[in-house]
């Protein structure tokens, strides 16, 4: 993948509240992350954890009752949160584009699809209709719509779910955006179609080197798509790292729970490890670690004080008191121990390959 170290987007201490009739919902509680050029960052978490709200703030698409309590979203040295509506309109669909979850409802049912794909070109680049339609046709071919010439004047209902999602992707990518936000783009699709769409996204990313923020709750999809992963829980990022670090060396008990509660095709046995309870009510977030009530590894301090981020490696951080030097040693669930073993093997192999180069010492905190 075409990665670089240049940060294209920096989100810093973002806090977003929603005013509702029942009170103030603290949906995003101090979230910071960055996105590098050409990489895919996956944000995982369950519904209500704040993944969608985070990305909506990047697009300037927050609902009317949302209040940004603090923080910045810097895109090329400009704070998106402070942009005027006019500036935001120039941003959306041109530099930052989004693919939504449901391809059935994100297309205009009364507009021919060629016109829908060409529209961003006409709006943002002032292109003539004929020229825009020609590019739209090329884009349709690129995203794999068969028989594109004949189908350019069809309406969305004439396409299957997978084809509609291809159209949505075509619309999002027609302006070669710098950032593509994909919010559960394959959740509504069948596995075989999902695999096709994911392949298509990877292929297009290589072609136009866009950065992708991929939101999903499906860890299988994350494993195949992401360069880096951020795990969100109750409006906060609780752990982030490279995809290997999160899947093979997770440190936060919530990540442990997520990874071990997903059966793989190899899983057998009587009981599936599950995370007990339900996510907290963000009208009144608990003091201390919000995950503590569901966490069988919770320490006393978890109910009193929120854990800061502890460094695991240069790229891997986790907000859990278990990483504090004074914390008692705990053994993660068996599934996680197995993953960690795999990680250790991989590290060894990597180290052996690097032997001829100056050795970069990776901190071992087991």
């Amino acid at each position: 993948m075409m990665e670089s170290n240049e940060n294209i987007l920096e989100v810093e201490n973002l806090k977003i509240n929603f005013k509702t009739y029942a009170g103030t919902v603290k949906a995003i509680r101090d979230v910071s992350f960055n996105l590098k050029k050409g990489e895919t960052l996956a944000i995982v978490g369950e519904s209500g954890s704040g993944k969608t709200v985070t990305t909506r703030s990047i697009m300037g698409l927050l609902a009317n009752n949302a209040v940004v309590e603090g923080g910045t979203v810097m895109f090329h040295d400009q704070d998106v949160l402070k942009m005027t509506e006019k500036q935001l309109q120039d941003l959306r669909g041109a530099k930052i584009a989004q693919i939504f979850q449901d391809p059935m409802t994100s297309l205009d049912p009364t507009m021919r699809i060629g016109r829908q794909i060409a529209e961003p070109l006409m709006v943002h680049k002032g292109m003539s209709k004929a020229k825009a339609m020609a590019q739209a046709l090329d884009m349709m071919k690129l995203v794999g719509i068969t028989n594109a010439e004949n189908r350019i004047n069809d309406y969305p209902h004439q396409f299957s779910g997978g084809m509609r999602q291809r159209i949505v992707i075509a619309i999002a990518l027609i302006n070669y955006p710098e950032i593509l936000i994909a919010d559960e783009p394959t959740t509504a699709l069948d596995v075989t179609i999902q695999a096709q769409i994911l392949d298509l996204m990877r292929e297009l990313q290589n072609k136009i080197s866009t950065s992708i923020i991929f939101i999903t709750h499906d860890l299988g999809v994350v494993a195949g798509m992401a360069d880096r992963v951020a795990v969100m829980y109750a409006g906060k990022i609780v752990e982030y790292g490279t995809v290997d670090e999160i899947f093979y060396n997770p440190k936060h008990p919530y990540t442990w729970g997520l990874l071990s509660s997903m059966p793989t095709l190899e899983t057998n046995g009587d009981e599936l490890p599950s995370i007990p309870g339900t996510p907290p009510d963000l009208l009144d977030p608990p003091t201390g670690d919000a995950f503590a009530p569901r966490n069988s590894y919770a320490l006393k301090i978890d109910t009193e004080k929120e854990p800061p981020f502890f460094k695991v490696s240069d790229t891997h951080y986790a907000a859990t008191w278990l990483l504090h030097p004074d914390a008692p040693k705990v053994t993660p669930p068996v599934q996680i121990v197995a993953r960690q073993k795999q990680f250790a093997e991989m590290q060894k192999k990597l180290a052996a390959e690097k032997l001829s180069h100056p050795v970069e010492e990776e901190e071992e905190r087991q």
Partner: protein
Amino acid sequence: MDYHNAKKVLEVSHLKQYFNVGKKDEVKAVDDISFDIYEGETFGLVGESGSGKTTAGRAIIHLYTPTSGSIKFHGDEVVGMKDKTKMKQFRRDMQMIFQDPYASLNPRMKVRDIIAEGIDINHLAKSKEDRDKRVAELLETVGLNRDHGSRYPHEFSGGQRQRIGIARALAVEPKFIIADEPISALDVSIQAQVVNLLKQLQKERHLTYLFIAHDLSMVKYISDRIGVLHYGRMLEVGTSDEVYNHPLHDYTRSLLSAVPIPDPEYERTRTQIGYDPKYEQGDKARKLVEIAEHHWVQASPDEIPMYQERAKKEGLKVL
């Protein structure tokens, strides 16, 4: 599981469920499927959207009247059953858990009355106290609080609602439950809870499940045997281990190769198998043939040797 001595609870043979019969837009949603479900097992029905898995479930529980075919439950023919008492017993013995926990509970009824509806219809409670006691016990069985009964569905989360749906199904002491995508609408951390509950209830109450889902890893985990549906036809049936580890039909192979696995190493090296429907289309007459023991594949007579060859390569004991 020993399938030689196991008792058949459900026998589906040549089930066809067509819609708009005789019209231009006739849909063969379920087209001649046959399978048996044994007592105490979980039979998983997998397939993509439009494969007919939900229609099959609904035809079996008699929400639709099948176009043709036979469905035997405990040996009694259900299709065209005239005996009202028997039909009522069937309706009681077979229950359903639905996919959408938001749409399947009446928002204007209290949870207590939702759960007790089947108890009332079947006159299972001797008195009001008995009714309340049963509801309270059911709520506790599914992991809810006994005083949740006085609340309305909107006061519950998705996972809790699905538990209410399970309690409602259990209220009439069924023997067989059809679970149609019962966890698809739930969050990952809640899915495992509900799956564990279903497994635990199966053990305690000797239930038999027909589990319909598109999440292949979850189906594999919960099912003893699996049937793969495509375009309304059953392409492969076998124990879940065998179907997943040694799939014989091209479609099953392609479907399994598309399942994303939460393992980045695996994902990097994964190769997806494309699907060429040549062994499914055309006008050859095909039926399920037992290739290896308890492992059935849809094949025409001239395709049988090919599947036997495949089974040999997979190290299966060919019949």
